[in-house]
């Protein structure tokens, strides 16, 4: 299955190193997608644990603490890195 990957805001620059689409086995789960993203990042780099995850426009947790739903063909996985600047 194919999943659209969008890294937005502060995560944008990290997203430039990643494909816009992930190719995953059927019945993959969110954790499989995150593992594929981590594998695609340059060595030594990882996603920030508090980075927010949204599937199809709905928040499903953070990289460190999230639900693990099964993905569906063509779904969009959005990553938003936390920001606290005032």
């Amino acid at each position, binding site marked *: 299955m194919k999943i659209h990957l969008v890294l937005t805001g502060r995560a944008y620059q990290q997203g430039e190193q990643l494909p816009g689409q992930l190719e995953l086995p059927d019945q993959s789960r969110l954790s499989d997608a995150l593992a594929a993203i981590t594998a695609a990042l340059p060595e030594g780099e990882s996603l920030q644990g508090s980075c927010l995850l949204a599937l199809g426009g709905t928040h499903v947790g953070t990289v460190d603490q999230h639900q693990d739903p099964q993905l569906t063909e063509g779904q969009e996985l959005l990553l938003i890195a936390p920001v606290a*600047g005032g």
Partner: protein
Amino acid sequence: MGGPAALMMAMAGVGRILLAHSGTMISPDLNRQVLGNEQVLGKPRATHFAEYLRSMNRFIEVEAIDHEPDDEEAHQLAGRSDLVVACPPTFEERLRLNRASVAAGIPFIDAAQWGISGTLMVLQSPRTACLECVYPTPPPFEELFPVVGAISSAIGSLAALEAIKVLSGTGDPLWGKMLSYDGNRGIPTVISLTRNPQCPCCQETAEDAG
């Protein structure tokens, strides 16, 4: 971004503003702190910011609090407020204001920025997630981070707009949603935030509400 938010609320006629900001005005703040200027460098921020807001609208009350409130004071201040607009530089402070808002049962608007991007959330547990549902573990503190004043003003103004909508009952506030503005690409994205039923901050409030 608290400056633009407070300024827009004052100009709109929000009748009473409690403005908490510690420290003195320093030159690196001048790229975004629209309530300050070269003449107030080295002077307490909250006092001067409050004075500026009063100069923009003589009909409103502005109370300056020249330090970051601790938990107890945050609860007291929330108890005297109709909503909280949170714009501090750390997640610890944001989560403290969130706890106070949840305890007081009032809306909580979180506005934040980094570089040329920003986020905005409108929350009120138990009808929506609270900030601790969204960030169960505070992201690490950053002493230095890039800020462009334009994003500060944009997100701060949008925070004020949401506050005005909530206070006046106008329109459809971004309840339970996060607006993320990606300044790199000029793309806004809105996602629906999900409550954490085990959230240590708002679980009890939700249970009380039935």
